[in-house]
């Protein structure tokens, strides 16, 4: 991050280090995955493991961890797929000096994501949620020398970051309404929440967070743009794990918030629209990685749609598809990365007939794509059958949901064909690189394991997956025990017929793909409105407002700054005075004559500052005002304050003299500025009235009493002003002197910058 030029990266050789150290992250992740596997038997029995330590006890916030089916499934995906991705990264970036930074960021992300899914405390969840947002930003902008990567990273950060803020508000409201920040306790209070007046507000805020994170329409555009990240990052964050955080949140809060009309319809509609739009645009892409990105958006849409289904069958479909998608999508991303690296391109039209040169890659891609297209006996087939079964059972509009699912799946079949068939078949070989070949083991093993798992789970679904994970996931989402069995063969029923229809439709679309793509490209060129336009408009509007208010409030002229500051201050003070309800104090006017004399001196000097046309006289009068105030402090026993005041007055006069005495004499006949006079009078009177009003209230002497009692025995000082400054409230003083240093650095820089620049052009 410190090195801006890509050339420098290339020129530098890999830093010397312990050989094999680059495989350490993969090893750590694999060990973590094995550790989490150890929880499977307990969770499959229906146990829920919890652990908590207090974090901010005063606010009831804990660092609480909960492992149930949902959390465990995500943890296994994060660590298991993480191990594969780390191994792949070590091979993909071999010899690249940026590997260390990439691995560090990926590890940081993995930890954040694990924290997110394991958290049982809403605030803990939010902190880790933002952790994934920030690491995602850094990873998308990994090629920071490219403007495109930086822009896309910022876009992802803004979209998901704003959603994150909404989520925080939603979670806080949830906490206020339920009286707990424990997610597991909120899940039991669903009836209270759904009857609450705040329900709609909470739902909107939480959904904003989930929809931006999981790229739902109309926030979907950031995810395909996030493909500016290196391929391993896309495979890990933007298909298998991070983008599912929103889905995870919806699943986690489903018992607390789900089941209402508005929940069912919003999730179903947003999910379906996202799913359909994304699958159509997937076919439009020529870059295989972008195509996969759009199919990821489609999958996220499908998951949201089924979570809104409000029926156990729909939840079962969502739970199964979650696993299915993570397995095939991560491996396909990694394999597209192999094509990019070993054949030199990701463009669908640039690659042909590679099966002979890259047999292993072709086989693995076929395995993963068959699961994606939903062919038996792969897990994808079961996922698809369950989707149809779930779609037909949803509470809202079964026909609409099932129709949308069939159409989206048909497009999925076509995309699977474009990824797995198009580049590898054909007699003549076509690839930008001369000698395309299969990659080293580090790059084929991870996708191979994932693809083979997709097959193994498909053949033994209930034994390997159904009882161990899907059932606990569904139980967690539904909030009540739920028994299910996963079967490869469901018999001849409506979902099977829909499957056959899907294959036929998908094959047609695959054959028509080039024509569809041209038509879509034409529509795009013809000015089809895009959601990204809204983002651009909002961004430029924000910048415009920022520039406008900076011009107005910070005009670069000291009179403007002073007017703005004083006007606001006067407004605040008068507002507080006029709305205050405290008793008005008995005004004790009986003060010695000496005090009146000093007050008179101050008043006369103040008037003189304003009226005199001699700058020297004005400076002297200013000094007299300060000295008079200091004498008043002395008379009332505040020696420390008086000393400070006097010294500050001396220095202020010195400072002002340097600047003012070099200005020309104030010309005669200048118009009087009555507006400024009124402003000054308003502020001065306001402060005076406020001070008198304060005397009427309870001054709260407990602190003074405490300091007086404890200053000498505890802090060994009899001057309580100083003891407060350097001992009791030393942290405040530390902050203040830090501010003094920063202000001095800034002032000196501003005073010398131009001259230094002039001297050394």
């Amino acid at each position: 991050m410190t090195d801006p030029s890509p050339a420098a990266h290339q020129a530098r050789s890999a830093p010397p280090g312990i050989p094999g150290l680059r495989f350490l992250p993969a090893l750590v992740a694999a060990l973590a995955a094995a550790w989490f596997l150890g929880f499977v038997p307990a969770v499959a029995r229906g146990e829920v493991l919890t652990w908590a330590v207090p974090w901010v006890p005063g606010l009831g916030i804990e660092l609480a961890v909960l492992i149930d089916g949902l959390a465990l499934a995500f943890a296994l995906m994060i660590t298991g797929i993480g191990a594969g991705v780390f191994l792949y990264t070590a091979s993909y970036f071999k010899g690249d000096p940026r590997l260390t930074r990439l691995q560090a960021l990926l590890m940081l992300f993995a930890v954040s994501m694990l924290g997110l899914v394991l958290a049982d405390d809403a605030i803990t969840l939010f902190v880790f949620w933002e952790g994934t947002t920030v690491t995602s930003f850094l990873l998308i902008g990994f090629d920071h020398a490219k403007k495109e990567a930086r822009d896309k990273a910022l876009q992802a950060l803004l979209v998901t970051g704003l959603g994150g803020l909404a989520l925080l508000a939603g979670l806080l409201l949830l906490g206020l309404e339920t009286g707990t920040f424990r997610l597991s306790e909120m899940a039991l209070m669903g009836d209270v929440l759904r009857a609450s007046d705040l329900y709609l507000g909470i739902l909107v805020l939480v959904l904003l967070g989930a929809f931006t994170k999981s790229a739902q329409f109309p926030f979907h555009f950031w995810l395909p743009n996030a493909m500016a990240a290196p391929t391993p990052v896309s495979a890990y964050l933007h298909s298998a794990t991070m983008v599912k955080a929103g889905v995870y949140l919806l699943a986690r809060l489903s018992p607390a918030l789900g089941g209402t009309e508005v929940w069912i319809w919003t999730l179903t509609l947003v999910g379906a629209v996202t799913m359909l739009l994304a699958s159509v645009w997937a076919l439009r892409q020529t870059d295989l990685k972008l195509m996969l990105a759009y199919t990821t958006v489609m999958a996220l849409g499908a998951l949201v749609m089924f979570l809104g289904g409000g029926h156990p069958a729909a939840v079962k479909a969502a739970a199964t598809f979650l696993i299915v998608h993570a397995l095939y999508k991560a491996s396909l991303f990694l394999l597209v990365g192999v094509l990019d690296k070993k054949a030199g391109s990701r463009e669908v039209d640039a690659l042909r007939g590679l099966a002979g040169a890259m047999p292993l890659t072709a086989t693995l891609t076929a395995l993963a794509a068959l699961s994606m297209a939903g062919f038996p006996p792969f897990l994808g087939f079961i996922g698809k059958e369950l989707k149809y079964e779930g779609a037909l059972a949803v509470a809202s509009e079964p026909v609409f949901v099932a129709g949308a699912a069939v159409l989206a799946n048909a497009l999925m079949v076509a995309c699977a064909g474009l990824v797995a068939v198009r580049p590898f078949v054909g007699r003549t070989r076509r690839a930008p690189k001369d000698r395309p070949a299969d990659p080293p083991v580090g790059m084929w093993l991870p996708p191979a394991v994932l693809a083979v798992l997709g097959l193994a789970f498909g053949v033994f679904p209930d034994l390997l997956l159904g009882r161990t994970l899907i059932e606990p996931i569904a139980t967690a989402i539904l909030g009540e025990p739920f028994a299910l069995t996963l079967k490869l063969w469901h018999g001849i029923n409506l979902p099977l017929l829909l499957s056959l229809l899907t294959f036929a439709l998908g094959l047609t679309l695959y054959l028509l793909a080039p024509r569809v793509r041209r038509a879509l490209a034409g529509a795009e060129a013809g000015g089809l409105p895009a959601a990204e336009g809204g983002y651009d408009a909002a961004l430029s509007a924000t910048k415009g407002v920022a520039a406008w208010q900076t011009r107005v409030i910070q005009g670069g002229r000291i009179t403007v700054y002073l007017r703005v500051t004083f006007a606001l201050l006067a407004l605040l003070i008068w507002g507080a005075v006029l709305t205050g309800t405290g008793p008005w104090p008995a005004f004790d006017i009986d003060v010695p004559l000496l005090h009146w004399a000093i007050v008179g001196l101050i008043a006369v000097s103040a008037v003189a500052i304003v009226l005199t046309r001699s700058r020297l006289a004005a400076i002297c009068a200013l000094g007299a005002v300060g000295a008079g105030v200091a004498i008043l402090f002395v008379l009332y026993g505040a020696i420390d304050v008086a000393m400070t005041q006097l010294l500050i007055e001396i220095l202020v006069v010195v400072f002002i003299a340097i600047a003012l005495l070099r200005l020309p004499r104030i010309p005669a006949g200048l118009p009087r500025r009555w507006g400024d006079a009124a402003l000054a009078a308003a502020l001065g009177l306001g402060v005076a009235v406020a001070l008198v009003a304060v005397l009427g209230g309870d001054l709260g002497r407990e602190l003074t009493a405490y300091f007086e009692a404890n200053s000498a025995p505890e802090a060994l000082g009899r001057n309580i002003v100083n003891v407060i400054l350097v001992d009791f409230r030393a942290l405040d003083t530390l902050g203040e002197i830090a501010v003094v240093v920063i202000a001095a650095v800034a002032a000196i820089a501003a005073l010398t910058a131009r001259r230094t620049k002039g001297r050394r052009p």
Partner: protein
Amino acid sequence: MNSLILTTATRALAPLLLVFSVYILLRGHNEPGGGFIGGLVAATAFALLEKAEGVARARRLLRLRPLTVAALGLGAALLAGLWGAVAKGHVLAGVWPLIEKTADGGKSGLPVGSVLLFDVGVYLVVVGAVCGVLFALEEAATALECEPDEGGAGRGGGAPKTIDQTMDRTIDRTVDGGDR
């Protein structure tokens, strides 16, 4: 500013002020005074030196760059905080290594420790920050006076009608001064 009276008086006053500032700093815990006031007194001494003998000489007499002094002060205050953290387990907790508890529950010994170190830090920050800004301001103003005065004629022209215009012109010249 060439004033014989000021120069002569400064030679006598500045050292006294500096010694007095340290006295103020040290007595601050029990009597009026302390790091902040002591620092201001010392800064006044340097302001006097700067007025009487010029910025260059004042800078030489300070020996360190003003911001270095301020940074040392901030460092001392942080160190005092760490001292408390290490010795008592709380950042900025007061530590007095020379104080012992007496049999009747009171305390006796020399009250020197982290709190005094903290106050010294405050003193140095005030001296460094005030001197730094003061010297820089004086140098900027001197540089401005040495420039040939052509800014006024080029901008707007004519006699200034309001204070604002007078100010603006001067500000423009201050800001653009070096480039002309």
